[in-house]
């Protein structure tokens, strides 16, 4: 039987965007200029994990799901170019990226139900910048599926998934029955680069688009939060640059200064 793997992939602001490009004003964060979005880095690792399983398993299909209001097609097609089979965009004005993961969870859950035969969902451990790491756990709870987070190795065998989880000082192996949701981390290794054939093939694939209506969502999932304020915190740090005749001298002066301040 074909193993059906869903990878969730989010289009995000490039996390390498320099901090100076971020503007915090009027309860919103904006970026200066035209910085192209990227596929969330951990989600590329999720694609990589799915493709490795597909290679080991033979009979498997990888569907990528992404939820948002609008997409840069050449960006969000990258998983296809890497080797994923299908792309479904959950695209609707209601899927605006907000402070609230409720809608993304509802949409992804509904899409996975609609696909019907999904065995395994693989997600990035978190979307860049916010460190929420909630969406995959929410999807697992909504579906009532088992979950394992922060994997560096994911294997499927006999109706179970085995995940090697990264711990702060070591690792552990867990096993869960399918269907299940797994999140992966950068320790999984560098995701493959799309090759020319992949890129050409991806170009020909038309993504499927599902809206709120296609997903039978009423579009008004009751929000969990309301933004009260977003502001730049007061910076308390006064930086003191230590200089000297040369770099070595500055190093010596640093030691003396730290002693003076009783830091050492």
């Amino acid at each position, binding site marked *: 039987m074909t193993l059906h793997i869903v990878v969730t992939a989010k289009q995000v602001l490039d*996390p390498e965007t*320099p*901090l100076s490009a*971020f503007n*915090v004003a009027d309860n919103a*964060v904006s970026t200066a200029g035209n910085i192209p979005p990227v596929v969330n880095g951990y989600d590329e690792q999720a694609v990589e994990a799915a493709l490795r399983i597909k290679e080991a398993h033979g009979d498997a299909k990888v569907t990528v799901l992404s939820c948002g209001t609008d997409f840069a097609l050449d960006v969000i097609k990258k998983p296809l170019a890497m080797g994923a089979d299908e792309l479904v965009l959950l695209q609707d004005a209601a899927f605006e990226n907000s*402070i*609230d993961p*409720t809608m993304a*969870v509802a949409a992804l859950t509904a899409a996975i139900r609609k696909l019907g035969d999904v065995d395994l969902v693989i997600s990035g451990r*978190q979307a*860049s*910048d*916010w*460190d929420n*790491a*909630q969406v995959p*756990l*929410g999807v697992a*709870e*909504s579906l009532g599926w088992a979950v394992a987070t922060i994997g560096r190795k994911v294997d499927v065998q006999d109706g179970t998934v*085995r995940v090697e989880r990264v711990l*702060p*000082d*070591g*690792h*552990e*192996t*867990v*096993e*869960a*029955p399918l269907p*299940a949701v797994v999140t992966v981390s*950068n*320790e999984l290794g560098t995701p493959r680069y799309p090759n020319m054939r992949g890129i050409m093939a991806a170009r020909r694939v038309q993504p499927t688009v599902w809206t709120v209506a296609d997903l039978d969502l009423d579009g008004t999932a009751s929000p*969990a*939060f309301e933004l009260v*304020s*977003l*502001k*730049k*915190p007061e*910076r308390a*740090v006064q*930086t003191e640059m*230590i200089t000297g005749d*040369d*770099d070595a*001298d*500055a*190093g*010596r002066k*640093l*030691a*003396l200064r*730290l*002693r003076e*301040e009783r*830091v*050492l």
Partner: protein
Amino acid sequence: MADALIIGEITDGAPASATLEGIAAARRMGAGQVAVLLPGADAASAASAAIAGGADIVYTIVDGPAADGEFDALVDAAQAAVTLSGARYVIGAKTLTGRDVMPRLAFRLGTALASDCSVVSLDDSGRLIATRPVYGGNAEASVACLGSVAVASLRPKSVDALEPDTSRIGEVSPLAFEANVRTRVLERVEEAGEGVRLENARVVVSGGRGLGGPEPFDSLRELANMLGGAVGASRAACDAGWVPSGYQVGLTGKTVTPDLYIAVGISGASQHMAGCSNSRTLVAINKDAGANIFKEARFGVAGDWQKVLPAFMEQLHELMG
């Protein structure tokens, strides 16, 4: 019955520091009666420390999968404790366990988690207001939790625990619940780190891509040893394989709050700063005077570490006799 429920943890036979911080946060925001869930073999003895730390009710689980730390069972236990206590405010911590358990609990309760908060408070109408640093501390967001139950997790070490008061009295009761464990731990491998634990170190010396390879980390180790500290790293250094991933400080690594943090050859990306910006004194050595790390550092040297560091260490040696 209680107004606030803290999803607690036990370490070394006592309530975890993050748990005592959660209790303190609930007390300070004026939540009323505070209950704590304590799963673990030592829960009965840890309960008195939780009460001294400000709890009114302690729900204990002394055996079974939740006491063993299985996430599935902990979510089931937490859900049962919410129901039993009738709490309106549920507070956990962004610990290894909390990262998995708290979001799942929030979704089970029909809401979402206000994660990684540095401050929690109540507004005039009793809504929980959660404040968290975002964009690596470059912005601070406050959200009001709207549902009938608010679920938040605190970033460890962002609030102080209360002074223990052993004269406080409270109620201790075992929690009955049904656990449905699906994800099972087959094996756990500890990769024993040498020396001082990064998370507890008073001094942390971290290296980044600017070190250029694994060997320079020996100098950082020597410096850390001199100061009784531990060595950390940026993700770039970990990803390059120069040091194990357990060294990583930052958003997706460890959070450290030492008295002294020395960053060598680290640019100061927001994701790195998220793990060290609460250090008391931050010192940066970087050859690029425009590096972001100098915006966050208390003391900086704009220079080549290969020249700065040996001289710094030599001088230090002299000072320390």
